[in-house]
Protein backbone atom coordinates (compact mmCIF):
# COMPACT_ATOMS: atom_id res chain seq x y z
CA UNK A 1 0.00 0.00 0.00
CA UNK A 2 2.77 2.44 0.99
CA UNK A 3 4.83 1.35 -2.03
CA UNK A 4 1.94 2.00 -4.39
CA UNK A 5 1.36 5.42 -2.74
CA UNK A 6 5.04 6.31 -3.19
CA UNK A 7 4.93 5.11 -6.81
CA UNK A 8 1.83 7.22 -7.36
CA UNK A 9 3.49 10.35 -5.90
CA UNK A 10 6.70 9.76 -7.88
CA UNK A 11 4.60 9.42 -11.05
CA UNK A 12 2.78 12.70 -10.36
CA UNK A 13 5.95 14.56 -9.40
CA UNK A 14 7.82 13.40 -12.51
CA UNK A 15 4.89 14.35 -14.74
CA UNK A 16 5.34 18.08 -13.91
CA UNK A 17 7.35 20.13 -16.38
CA UNK A 18 9.86 22.57 -14.84
CA UNK A 19 7.47 25.53 -14.61
CA UNK A 20 4.68 23.40 -13.12
CA UNK A 21 7.11 21.93 -10.65
CA UNK A 22 8.11 25.40 -9.40
CA UNK A 23 4.46 26.40 -8.91
CA UNK A 24 3.53 23.17 -7.14
CA UNK A 25 6.60 23.48 -4.91
CA UNK A 26 5.72 27.09 -4.04
CA UNK A 27 2.11 26.13 -3.28
CA UNK A 28 3.25 23.23 -1.08
CA UNK A 29 5.68 25.45 0.82
CA UNK A 30 2.96 28.09 1.22
CA UNK A 31 0.58 25.49 2.72
CA UNK A 32 3.41 24.21 4.92
CA UNK A 33 4.37 27.65 6.33
CA UNK A 34 0.77 28.86 6.46
CA UNK A 35 -0.33 25.83 8.45
CA UNK A 36 2.55 26.13 10.92
CA UNK A 37 1.79 29.84 11.51
CA UNK A 38 -1.93 29.10 11.97
CA UNK A 39 -1.03 26.13 14.20
CA UNK A 40 0.97 28.33 16.56
CA UNK A 41 -1.79 30.95 16.48
CA UNK A 42 -4.39 28.39 17.65
CA UNK A 43 -2.05 26.97 20.31
CA UNK A 44 -1.30 30.46 21.65
CA UNK A 45 -4.92 31.64 21.65
CA UNK A 46 -6.10 28.36 23.20
CA UNK A 47 -3.61 28.78 26.02
CA UNK A 48 -4.60 32.41 26.59
CA UNK A 49 -8.25 31.30 26.87
CA UNK A 50 -7.39 28.56 29.36
CA UNK A 51 -5.07 30.81 31.37
CA UNK A 52 -7.33 33.86 31.79
CA UNK A 53 -9.43 33.85 34.98
CA UNK A 54 -13.11 34.77 34.83
CA UNK A 55 -13.81 38.21 36.29
CA UNK A 56 -16.98 39.56 37.83
CA UNK A 57 -18.23 42.60 35.99
CA UNK A 58 -18.70 44.77 39.10
CA UNK A 59 -15.05 44.34 40.13
CA UNK A 60 -13.28 43.55 36.85
CA UNK A 61 -10.06 45.44 36.32
CA UNK A 62 -9.44 47.50 33.22
CA UNK A 63 -7.62 45.48 30.60
CA UNK A 64 -7.81 42.00 29.08
CA UNK A 65 -10.46 39.91 30.89
CA UNK A 66 -12.74 36.92 30.57
CA UNK A 67 -16.44 37.31 31.37
CA UNK A 68 -19.26 34.78 31.59
CA UNK A 69 -22.95 35.50 31.85
CA UNK A 70 -26.27 35.70 30.03
CA UNK A 71 -26.79 37.63 26.81
CA UNK A 72 -29.25 40.52 27.11
CA UNK A 73 -30.37 42.92 24.43
CA UNK A 74 -29.76 46.63 24.89
CA UNK A 75 -32.86 48.49 26.10
CA UNK A 76 -34.81 45.19 26.16
CA UNK A 77 -35.30 45.42 22.39
CA UNK A 78 -34.05 42.17 20.82
CA UNK A 79 -32.92 42.14 17.19
CA UNK A 80 -34.68 40.05 14.54
CA UNK A 81 -32.80 37.96 12.01
CA UNK A 82 -33.90 39.15 8.54
CA UNK A 83 -34.35 35.58 7.20
CA UNK A 84 -36.40 33.82 9.88
CA UNK A 85 -37.48 36.79 11.97
CA UNK A 86 -36.25 35.03 15.11
CA UNK A 87 -35.39 37.23 18.08
CA UNK A 88 -31.76 37.39 19.12
CA UNK A 89 -29.01 39.68 20.39
CA UNK A 90 -26.57 38.83 17.57
CA UNK A 91 -26.98 37.23 14.15
CA UNK A 92 -25.13 36.26 11.02
CA UNK A 93 -27.20 35.19 8.03
CA UNK A 94 -26.84 34.20 4.41
CA UNK A 95 -29.56 33.92 1.77
CA UNK A 96 -28.73 32.01 -1.42
CA UNK A 97 -30.70 31.32 -4.60
CA UNK A 98 -30.45 28.14 -6.62
CA UNK A 99 -29.00 28.59 -10.10
CA UNK A 100 -26.35 26.27 -11.48
CA UNK A 101 -25.11 26.30 -7.93
CA UNK A 102 -26.24 28.15 -4.80
CA UNK A 103 -25.55 31.83 -5.44
CA UNK A 104 -25.24 34.34 -2.63
CA UNK A 105 -28.01 36.94 -2.69
CA UNK A 106 -27.74 38.56 0.71
CA UNK A 107 -25.43 38.27 3.69
CA UNK A 108 -25.14 40.34 6.83
CA UNK A 109 -23.59 40.16 10.29
CA UNK A 110 -24.90 42.13 13.24
CA UNK A 111 -22.63 44.90 14.47
CA UNK A 112 -24.96 45.91 17.30
CA UNK A 113 -23.72 45.62 20.85
CA UNK A 114 -25.50 43.52 23.46
CA UNK A 115 -25.12 43.10 27.20
CA UNK A 116 -23.55 40.30 29.16
CA UNK A 117 -25.20 40.02 32.56
CA UNK A 118 -23.24 37.95 35.10
CA UNK A 119 -25.45 38.78 38.06
CA UNK A 120 -23.06 41.43 39.40
CA UNK A 121 -23.41 43.92 36.56
CA UNK A 122 -23.91 44.55 32.86
CA UNK A 123 -21.20 44.90 30.26
CA UNK A 124 -21.90 45.98 26.67
CA UNK A 125 -20.12 43.71 24.20
CA UNK A 126 -19.21 45.10 20.80
CA UNK A 127 -19.28 42.15 18.36
CA UNK A 128 -17.58 44.06 15.54
CA UNK A 129 -14.00 42.78 15.11
CA UNK A 130 -14.79 39.85 17.44
CA UNK A 131 -14.67 36.15 16.57
CA UNK A 132 -18.23 35.07 17.34
CA UNK A 133 -18.62 31.34 17.99
CA UNK A 134 -22.15 29.92 18.21
CA UNK A 135 -23.74 26.53 18.49
CA UNK A 136 -27.01 27.48 16.88
CA UNK A 137 -26.52 27.26 13.12
CA UNK A 138 -29.67 26.65 11.17
CA UNK A 139 -29.92 25.86 7.46
CA UNK A 140 -33.23 25.41 5.63
CA UNK A 141 -34.49 25.52 2.06
CA UNK A 142 -37.71 27.09 0.81
CA UNK A 143 -38.21 26.50 -2.93
CA UNK A 144 -35.18 27.89 -4.72
CA UNK A 145 -33.99 29.76 -1.65
CA UNK A 146 -31.60 28.52 0.97
CA UNK A 147 -31.27 30.27 4.33
CA UNK A 148 -28.36 29.88 6.74
CA UNK A 149 -28.23 31.65 10.05
CA UNK A 150 -26.26 31.65 13.27
CA UNK A 151 -27.41 33.57 16.26
CA UNK A 152 -27.00 34.28 19.94
CA UNK A 153 -30.44 34.34 21.53
CA UNK A 154 -31.56 36.37 24.51
CA UNK A 155 -30.51 34.67 27.77
CA UNK A 156 -28.01 32.34 26.06
CA UNK A 157 -24.96 31.72 28.24
CA UNK A 158 -22.04 33.56 26.70
CA UNK A 159 -18.35 33.53 27.34
CA UNK A 160 -16.27 36.50 26.20
CA UNK A 161 -12.61 37.43 26.13
CA UNK A 162 -11.59 40.99 25.37
CA UNK A 163 -10.57 44.42 26.56
CA UNK A 164 -12.66 45.62 29.50
CA UNK A 165 -13.19 49.36 29.71
CA UNK A 166 -15.27 51.43 32.07
CA UNK A 167 -16.72 54.74 30.99
CA UNK A 168 -17.32 56.75 34.17
CA UNK A 169 -20.30 58.60 32.69
CA UNK A 170 -20.46 62.27 31.76
CA UNK A 171 -19.48 64.88 34.32
CA UNK A 172 -22.20 67.25 35.52
CA UNK A 173 -20.72 70.01 33.33
CA UNK A 174 -20.90 67.77 30.25
CA UNK A 175 -24.48 66.72 31.00
CA UNK A 176 -25.40 70.40 31.43
CA UNK A 177 -23.71 71.40 28.17
CA UNK A 178 -25.50 68.70 26.16
CA UNK A 179 -28.82 69.48 27.87
CA UNK A 180 -28.57 73.20 27.02
CA UNK A 181 -27.69 72.42 23.40
CA UNK A 182 -30.68 70.07 23.04
CA UNK A 183 -33.07 72.57 24.63
CA UNK A 184 -31.87 75.47 22.47
CA UNK A 185 -32.27 73.27 19.36
CA UNK A 186 -35.85 72.49 20.41
CA UNK A 187 -36.59 76.21 20.81
CA UNK A 188 -35.02 77.02 17.45
CA UNK A 189 -37.38 74.57 15.76
CA UNK A 190 -40.39 76.41 17.20
CA UNK A 191 -39.60 79.92 15.96
CA UNK A 192 -42.92 81.47 16.90
CA UNK A 193 -42.54 80.51 20.55
CA UNK A 194 -38.89 81.58 20.50
CA UNK A 195 -39.90 85.07 19.30
CA UNK A 196 -42.74 85.30 21.82
CA UNK A 197 -40.40 84.54 24.70
CA UNK A 198 -37.20 86.33 23.74
CA UNK A 199 -37.84 88.98 21.03
CA UNK A 200 -37.89 91.86 23.51
CA UNK A 201 -37.64 94.72 20.98
CA UNK A 202 -40.36 93.15 18.80
CA UNK A 203 -38.40 93.41 15.50
CA UNK A 204 -39.29 89.82 14.54
CA UNK A 205 -35.71 88.68 14.90
CA UNK A 206 -33.48 87.33 17.67
CA UNK A 207 -30.36 89.49 17.99
CA UNK A 208 -27.20 88.57 19.88
CA UNK A 209 -28.33 89.97 23.27
CA UNK A 210 -31.70 88.22 22.99
CA UNK A 211 -30.00 84.95 22.03
CA UNK A 212 -27.66 85.24 25.03
CA UNK A 213 -30.70 85.72 27.24
CA UNK A 214 -32.32 82.62 25.72
CA UNK A 215 -29.11 80.72 26.47
CA UNK A 216 -29.09 81.95 30.09
CA UNK A 217 -32.72 80.84 30.48
CA UNK A 218 -31.88 77.40 29.01
CA UNK A 219 -28.91 77.00 31.40
CA UNK A 220 -31.10 77.84 34.42
CA UNK A 221 -33.82 75.47 33.23
CA UNK A 222 -31.40 72.54 32.68
CA UNK A 223 -29.59 73.27 35.97
CA UNK A 224 -32.82 73.13 37.95
CA UNK A 225 -33.94 69.97 36.11
CA UNK A 226 -30.69 68.11 36.76
CA UNK A 227 -29.94 69.46 40.24
CA UNK A 228 -31.46 66.49 42.06
CA UNK A 229 -31.37 63.85 39.37
CA UNK A 230 -27.74 63.89 38.29
CA UNK A 231 -26.07 60.61 39.09
CA UNK A 232 -22.86 59.78 37.21
CA UNK A 233 -23.39 56.31 35.76
CA UNK A 234 -20.63 53.86 34.98
CA UNK A 235 -20.84 51.94 31.71
CA UNK A 236 -18.75 48.83 31.16
CA UNK A 237 -17.73 47.86 27.64
CA UNK A 238 -15.92 44.92 26.12
CA UNK A 239 -14.02 45.76 22.94
CA UNK A 240 -11.21 44.32 20.81
CA UNK A 241 -7.96 43.98 22.83
CA UNK A 242 -5.40 46.76 22.39
CA UNK A 243 -2.73 44.08 22.15
CA UNK A 244 -3.36 42.64 18.69
CA UNK A 245 -1.80 39.34 19.69
CA UNK A 246 -4.66 38.62 22.08
CA UNK A 247 -7.91 37.01 20.93
CA UNK A 248 -11.26 38.77 20.96
CA UNK A 249 -13.80 35.97 21.36
CA UNK A 250 -17.55 36.01 21.94
CA UNK A 251 -18.92 32.51 22.29
CA UNK A 252 -22.25 30.94 23.14
CA UNK A 253 -20.56 27.60 23.74
CA UNK A 254 -18.57 26.96 26.95
CA UNK A 255 -14.88 27.73 27.23
CA UNK A 256 -13.89 24.05 27.45
CA UNK A 257 -15.59 23.30 24.15
CA UNK A 258 -13.99 26.31 22.48
CA UNK A 259 -10.51 25.30 23.63
CA UNK A 260 -11.21 21.68 22.57
CA UNK A 261 -12.14 22.99 19.12
CA UNK A 262 -8.93 25.01 19.02
CA UNK A 263 -6.94 21.88 19.95
CA UNK A 264 -8.71 19.96 17.18
CA UNK A 265 -7.87 22.69 14.66
CA UNK A 266 -4.28 22.65 15.93
CA UNK A 267 -4.03 18.87 15.40
CA UNK A 268 -5.49 19.26 11.90
CA UNK A 269 -2.99 22.00 11.07
CA UNK A 270 -0.15 19.93 12.51
CA UNK A 271 -1.17 17.09 10.17
CA UNK A 272 -1.31 19.50 7.23
CA UNK A 273 2.11 20.89 8.16
CA UNK A 274 3.67 17.43 8.38
CA UNK A 275 2.09 16.19 5.13
CA UNK A 276 2.91 19.33 3.11
CA UNK A 277 6.43 19.51 4.58
CA UNK A 278 7.03 15.83 3.83
CA UNK A 279 5.75 16.26 0.28
CA UNK A 280 8.01 19.29 -0.27
CA UNK A 281 11.01 17.22 0.86
CA UNK A 282 9.82 14.29 -1.25
CA UNK A 283 9.55 16.51 -4.34
CA UNK A 284 13.05 17.81 -3.75
CA UNK A 285 14.41 14.25 -3.59
CA UNK A 286 12.50 13.04 -6.66
CA UNK A 287 13.49 16.05 -8.78
CA UNK A 288 17.02 16.37 -7.45
CA UNK A 289 18.15 17.05 -11.05
CA UNK A 290 16.61 20.53 -10.80
CA UNK A 291 18.62 21.59 -7.73
Amino acid at each position, binding site marked *: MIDSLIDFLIGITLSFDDAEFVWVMLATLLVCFGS*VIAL*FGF*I*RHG*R*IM*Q*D*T*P*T*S*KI*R*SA*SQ*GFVQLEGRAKSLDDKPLRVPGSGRECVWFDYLIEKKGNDWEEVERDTSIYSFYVDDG*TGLCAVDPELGRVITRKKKVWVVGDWRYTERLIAENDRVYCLGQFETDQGGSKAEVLKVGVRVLLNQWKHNRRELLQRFDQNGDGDIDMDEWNQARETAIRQVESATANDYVPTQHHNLVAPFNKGYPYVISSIPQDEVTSRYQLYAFGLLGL*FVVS*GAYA*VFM*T*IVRRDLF
Partner: protein
Amino acid sequence: MTILEFVVGAMALVILIYTVIIYNGLIRLKNNVARAFANIEVLLKQRHTELPLLVAVCRGYMVHEQHVLLAITEARSRVHAAQEKHDVRGLGQAETRMRTSLSKLFARCEAYPDLKANENFLALQERISQLEDAIADRREIFNESVRLNNTRIQQVPDVVLARSFGFGELAYLKFETVALLPVKINLKS
Protein backbone atom coordinates in the same frame (compact mmCIF):
# COMPACT_ATOMS: atom_id res chain seq x y z
CA MET B 1 22.77 22.32 2.94
CA THR B 2 21.53 18.76 2.56
CA ILE B 3 17.86 17.86 2.67
CA LEU B 4 18.33 16.13 6.02
CA GLU B 5 19.94 19.24 7.50
CA PHE B 6 17.08 21.34 6.18
CA VAL B 7 14.45 19.00 7.70
CA VAL B 8 16.25 18.87 11.05
CA GLY B 9 16.64 22.67 11.02
CA ALA B 10 12.94 23.17 10.27
CA MET B 11 11.95 20.74 13.06
CA ALA B 12 14.28 22.51 15.50
CA LEU B 13 12.74 25.86 14.56
CA VAL B 14 9.22 24.52 15.15
CA ILE B 15 10.25 23.11 18.55
CA LEU B 16 11.94 26.40 19.46
CA ILE B 17 8.82 28.42 18.60
CA TYR B 18 6.67 26.01 20.62
CA THR B 19 9.06 26.38 23.57
CA VAL B 20 8.84 30.17 23.31
CA ILE B 21 5.02 29.96 23.34
CA ILE B 22 5.10 27.80 26.47
CA TYR B 23 7.63 30.08 28.20
CA ASN B 24 5.64 33.20 27.35
CA GLY B 25 2.51 31.46 28.62
CA LEU B 26 4.19 30.82 31.98
CA ILE B 27 5.29 34.45 32.17
CA ARG B 28 1.75 35.57 31.32
CA LEU B 29 0.32 33.39 34.12
CA LYS B 30 2.80 34.83 36.60
CA ASN B 31 1.97 38.36 35.46
CA ASN B 32 -1.76 37.62 35.77
CA VAL B 33 -1.20 36.73 39.42
CA ALA B 34 0.88 39.89 39.96
CA ARG B 35 -1.78 42.00 38.27
CA ALA B 36 -4.56 40.39 40.34
CA PHE B 37 -2.58 41.15 43.52
CA ALA B 38 -1.94 44.73 42.40
CA ASN B 39 -5.70 45.14 41.84
CA ILE B 40 -6.33 44.04 45.43
CA GLU B 41 -3.60 46.40 46.67
CA VAL B 42 -5.34 49.37 45.04
CA LEU B 43 -8.45 48.68 47.13
CA LEU B 44 -6.44 47.96 50.28
CA LYS B 45 -4.75 51.35 49.92
CA GLN B 46 -8.11 53.09 49.51
CA ARG B 47 -9.41 51.35 52.63
CA HIS B 48 -6.17 52.15 54.46
CA THR B 49 -6.86 55.84 53.82
CA GLU B 50 -10.53 55.70 54.82
CA LEU B 51 -10.30 53.62 57.99
CA PRO B 52 -8.78 56.40 60.18
CA LEU B 53 -11.70 58.64 59.17
CA LEU B 54 -14.15 55.95 60.28
CA VAL B 55 -12.32 55.45 63.56
CA ALA B 56 -12.22 59.22 64.15
CA VAL B 57 -15.98 59.57 63.60
CA CYS B 58 -16.73 56.60 65.89
CA ARG B 59 -14.32 57.70 68.63
CA GLY B 60 -16.47 60.75 69.38
CA TYR B 61 -19.53 58.59 70.12
CA MET B 62 -18.22 55.20 71.29
CA VAL B 63 -16.36 56.31 74.42
CA HIS B 64 -16.69 52.87 76.05
CA GLU B 65 -15.70 50.86 72.98
CA GLN B 66 -12.12 52.02 72.58
CA HIS B 67 -10.84 48.40 72.44
CA VAL B 68 -12.95 47.76 69.30
CA LEU B 69 -11.47 50.83 67.63
CA LEU B 70 -7.99 49.83 68.75
CA ALA B 71 -8.47 46.38 67.19
CA ILE B 72 -9.28 48.02 63.86
CA THR B 73 -6.21 50.26 64.04
CA GLU B 74 -4.02 47.24 64.82
CA ALA B 75 -5.55 45.14 62.04
CA ARG B 76 -5.01 48.06 59.65
CA SER B 77 -1.30 48.14 60.53
CA ARG B 78 -1.00 44.35 60.10
CA VAL B 79 -2.69 44.45 56.68
CA HIS B 80 -0.42 47.28 55.62
CA ALA B 81 2.72 45.48 56.81
CA ALA B 82 1.78 42.23 55.03
CA GLN B 83 0.89 44.16 51.90
CA GLU B 84 4.25 45.98 51.90
CA LYS B 85 6.08 42.64 52.21
CA HIS B 86 3.87 41.00 49.54
CA ASP B 87 3.24 38.30 52.15
CA VAL B 88 0.09 36.65 50.80
CA ARG B 89 -0.40 34.25 53.75
CA GLY B 90 0.18 37.05 56.29
CA LEU B 91 -2.22 39.27 54.38
CA GLY B 92 -4.91 36.59 54.56
CA GLN B 93 -4.57 36.33 58.35
CA ALA B 94 -4.50 40.12 58.81
CA GLU B 95 -7.49 40.53 56.52
CA THR B 96 -9.51 38.01 58.55
CA ARG B 97 -8.76 40.04 61.70
CA MET B 98 -9.69 43.25 59.95
CA ARG B 99 -13.04 41.87 58.77
CA THR B 100 -13.85 40.44 62.19
CA SER B 101 -12.99 43.79 63.85
CA LEU B 102 -15.06 45.78 61.36
CA SER B 103 -17.96 43.41 61.79
CA LYS B 104 -17.78 43.88 65.58
CA LEU B 105 -17.59 47.66 65.18
CA PHE B 106 -20.64 47.84 62.93
CA ALA B 107 -22.56 45.53 65.28
CA ARG B 108 -21.73 47.73 68.30
CA CYS B 109 -22.75 50.86 66.41
CA GLU B 110 -26.35 49.64 66.59
CA ALA B 111 -26.29 50.71 70.26
CA TYR B 112 -25.42 54.34 69.36
CA PRO B 113 -28.40 55.98 67.60
CA ASP B 114 -26.61 59.35 67.36
CA LEU B 115 -23.70 57.72 65.55
CA LYS B 116 -26.03 55.82 63.25
CA ALA B 117 -27.68 59.11 62.34
CA ASN B 118 -24.34 60.74 61.53
CA GLU B 119 -24.12 61.25 57.75
CA ASN B 120 -20.33 61.00 57.67
CA PHE B 121 -20.47 57.68 59.50
CA LEU B 122 -23.14 56.29 57.17
CA ALA B 123 -21.19 57.36 54.09
CA LEU B 124 -17.95 55.82 55.44
CA GLN B 125 -19.72 52.62 56.50
CA GLU B 126 -21.24 52.24 53.04
CA ARG B 127 -17.94 53.02 51.32
CA ILE B 128 -15.93 50.58 53.44
CA SER B 129 -18.52 47.83 52.97
CA GLN B 130 -18.32 48.35 49.21
CA LEU B 131 -14.53 48.16 49.37
CA GLU B 132 -14.74 44.92 51.38
CA ASP B 133 -17.05 43.38 48.76
CA ALA B 134 -14.74 44.48 45.95
CA ILE B 135 -11.71 43.07 47.80
CA ALA B 136 -13.54 39.74 48.22
CA ASP B 137 -14.36 39.68 44.47
CA ARG B 138 -10.80 40.47 43.49
CA ARG B 139 -9.51 37.82 45.86
CA GLU B 140 -11.54 35.29 43.84
CA ILE B 141 -9.81 36.43 40.64
CA PHE B 142 -6.43 36.34 42.38
CA ASN B 143 -7.03 32.78 43.63
CA GLU B 144 -8.29 31.72 40.19
CA SER B 145 -5.09 33.15 38.65
CA VAL B 146 -3.02 31.26 41.22
CA ARG B 147 -4.93 28.03 40.51
CA LEU B 148 -4.34 28.40 36.76
CA ASN B 149 -0.63 29.05 37.36
CA ASN B 150 -0.21 26.14 39.78
CA THR B 151 -2.08 23.75 37.46
CA ARG B 152 -0.15 24.77 34.38
CA ILE B 153 3.30 24.36 35.92
CA GLN B 154 2.44 20.75 36.82
CA GLN B 155 1.31 19.83 33.30
CA VAL B 156 3.43 18.29 30.56
CA PRO B 157 5.27 19.83 28.69
CA ASP B 158 5.13 23.03 30.78
CA VAL B 159 6.54 21.28 33.85
CA VAL B 160 9.91 20.86 32.08
CA LEU B 161 10.29 24.58 31.41
CA ALA B 162 8.76 25.56 34.75
CA ARG B 163 11.37 23.50 36.64
CA SER B 164 14.22 24.65 34.41
CA PHE B 165 13.39 28.34 34.85
CA GLY B 166 12.23 28.21 38.48
CA PHE B 167 8.50 28.86 38.07
CA GLY B 168 7.15 27.74 41.44
CA GLU B 169 3.74 27.26 43.01
CA LEU B 170 2.16 30.45 44.35
CA ALA B 171 0.17 30.89 47.57
CA TYR B 172 -3.59 31.40 47.67
CA LEU B 173 -5.03 34.39 49.51
CA LYS B 174 -7.33 32.97 52.19
CA PHE B 175 -9.48 35.02 54.53
CA GLU B 176 -12.93 34.70 55.99
CA THR B 177 -15.61 36.83 54.42
CA VAL B 178 -17.90 38.37 57.01
CA ALA B 179 -21.06 40.30 56.10
CA LEU B 180 -20.41 43.83 57.35
CA LEU B 181 -23.81 45.37 56.79
CA PRO B 182 -26.98 43.72 58.12
CA VAL B 183 -29.10 42.18 55.35
CA LYS B 184 -31.99 44.50 54.52
CA ILE B 185 -35.34 42.74 54.31
CA ASN B 186 -38.06 44.58 52.50
CA LEU B 187 -41.30 43.62 54.23
CA LYS B 188 -43.45 45.75 51.96
CA SER B 189 -43.02 43.64 48.83
